[in-house]
């Protein structure tokens, strides 16, 4: 038996030695004597890009229909129908990729990196819902976003959160947006895609942690409706800003508000604004003083945010793979703890020098230090502006939707007793 194997062992040893000399083609290609022909190289399926453009067309069509349903037709049932359609098409059929929420990262990656060109479809997915928000409010959230739709359809018994909790949680999307844009621009991670809670449900296949996260959010969403949209969605933060300046927005009442207060508790998203009370002269003075204080403090907030993020820069850089790997290698060098992670093993095999790695690490940290103050400044600025906005009286005389927070879901329509006859 051993005799039979011996030549193979010799060949094996010889070839291992020989392979060190010639990396490719250790074994000469055979010269076939029979009429053997090489099989064709398996040429697998090529992805067609037509479907992506179809997506853009469907997106524009769905946005138009939703805008019409929300602003003109005022049909809650129609909006729910659109939600079902979008959930099925963008969610379960197209598996949730690419969505405008994630396209934020493609845009920032393309803006700040010369080696990445953004696909036209991704750019359109980013811009088109914003244009619609500028025209008709957050109609994208109402019936086109698959992430919103899955929550909209599972929110059965809304509960109101305490005002303070609502305010604090509602600021999270802005922080998430700033950090996600920063990380995408630094080529580090696509955080939004990574922690997308529902894409696993659309695909019925994901890391179990994400599936559990999604399921928990849906469970919480039964009571606190649309938890992802309200307290996490970074694209929602951008839509929030754009929608505030929308030209034509959904209104609760089809005609003049009669202040019957029936719609007061209709909104599960805390997005119905009460009429402004007319302030007394003393209150007016106080408000003006607050207004001036916050205006003066805006630069202070911005600077403070920039400073905090400047100091956080290296910490955030630590999440980047190269920096983590450099830390591991340095630890091995200094204290002898062997680096065993797959990254470290691959690094040792790849033949890159440690100096190269450490230079790269320094460059990444430097990039983060340079860029993160902008993210912090943006957060400080938004905080300042939101505080100023608190002191502005709009002179509302009736109940109106909060243009930034309103998802145009249409729940408030049925509470309004004002009727407009169709003949008019």
């Amino acid at each position, binding site marked *: 038996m051993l005799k039979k194997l011996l030549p193979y062992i010799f060949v094996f040893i010889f070839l291992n030695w020989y392979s060190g000399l010639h990396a490719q083609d250790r074994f000469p290609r055979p010269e076939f004597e029979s009429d053997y022909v090489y099989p064709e190289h398996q040429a697998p399926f090529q992805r067609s890009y037509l479907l992506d453009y179809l997506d853009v067309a469907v997106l524009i069509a769905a946005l138009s229909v939703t805008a019409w349903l929300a602003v003109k037709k005022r049909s809650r049932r129609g909006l729910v129908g659109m939600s079902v359609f979008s959930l099925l098409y963008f969610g379960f059929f197209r*598996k949730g990729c690419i969505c405008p929420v994630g396209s934020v990262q493609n845009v920032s990656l393309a803006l700040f990196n010369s080696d990445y060109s953004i696909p036209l479809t991704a750019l359109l997915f980013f811009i088109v819902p914003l*244009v619609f928000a500028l025209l008709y409010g957050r109609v994208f959230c109402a019936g086109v976003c698959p992430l919103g739709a899955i929550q909209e359809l599972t929110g059965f018994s809304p509960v109101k959160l305490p005002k303070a909790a609502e305010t604090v949680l509602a600021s999270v999307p802005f922080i998430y947006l700033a950090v996600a844009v920063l990380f995408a621009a630094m080529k580090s991670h696509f955080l939004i895609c990574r922690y997308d809670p529902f894409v696993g449900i659309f695909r019925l296949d994901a890391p179990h942690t994400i599936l559990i996260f999604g399921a928990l959010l849906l469970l919480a969403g039964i009571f606190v409706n649309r938890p992802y949209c309200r307290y996490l969605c970074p694209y929602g933060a951008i839509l929030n800003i754009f929608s505030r300046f929308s030209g034509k927005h959904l209104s609760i009442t089809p005609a003049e508000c009669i202040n019957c207060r029936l719609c007061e508790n209709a909104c599960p998203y805390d997005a119905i604004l009460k009429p402004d009370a007319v302030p007394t002269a003393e209150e007016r003075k106080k408000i003006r003083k607050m207004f001036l204080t916050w205006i003066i403090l805006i630069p202070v907030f911005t600077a403070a945010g920039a400073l905090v993020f400047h100091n956080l820069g290296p910490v955030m850089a630590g999440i980047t793979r190269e920096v983590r790997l450099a830390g591991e290698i340095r630890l091995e060098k200094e204290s002898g703890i062997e680096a065993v992670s797959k990254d470290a093993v691959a690094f040792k095999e790849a033949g890159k020098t440690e100096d190269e790695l450490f230079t790269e690490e320094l460059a990444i940290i430097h990039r983060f230090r340079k860029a993160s103050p902008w993210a912090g400044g943006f957060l400080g600025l938004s905080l300042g502006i939101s505080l100023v906005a608190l002191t502005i009286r709009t002179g509302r005389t009736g109940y109106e939707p909060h243009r930034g927070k309103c998802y145009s879901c249409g729940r408030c329509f049925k509470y309004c007793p004002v009727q407009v006859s169709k003949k008019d």
Partner: protein
Amino acid sequence: MQDQMSRQKNKYSSRRDFVSKAGKILVTAPLVALPLALSRKTTASGYVWQIDPFKCTQCGQCKTNCVKTPSAVKCYHAFVMCGYCDLCGGYLRQGVRTISTGAENQLCPTGAITRRFVEEPYFEYTINEDLCDGCGKCVKGCIDFGNGSLYLQINQELCDNCNDCLIARKCPSDAISRVPAGRQYIHKADGPPVPES
């Protein structure tokens, strides 16, 4: 008094008007500026994820990290590079006693490689994609003891083309990157891909 009231009201509405108009311009500006800024950096065809077989170290992450089960990563065979060996490093486990198609001798855990006799002493190895789970064991075997004609690629039919590829994030050798959709596969026989300028 009334005159003053109306004047004040007038002033108020125009100020609010001013703020809302200024805001509108302020948010519209980036919306117009963005496509202009990115006009030279937009591709019409987009990208797909693909593995560079010349960087791949067959760590096995492709099998476990893809959002699809089984993974969208499959093994492909560049026949023109193959030595058609009898003792195939990609087909047979190391230190096998007999060279045969017995299951105990096969390296592939799912038995996805078929071995066919061509002529003395050559054998042809074909991969059954439906069985392959992208573990890369045969690829490693073929590179360690062979011409390296087996290599891993992402099958674009199975790939969901996630915006953030889970395997790309985990790949320790940076082998997975976005490639232009015009060239969705990197054929190993064609040599290393030329980076786009």
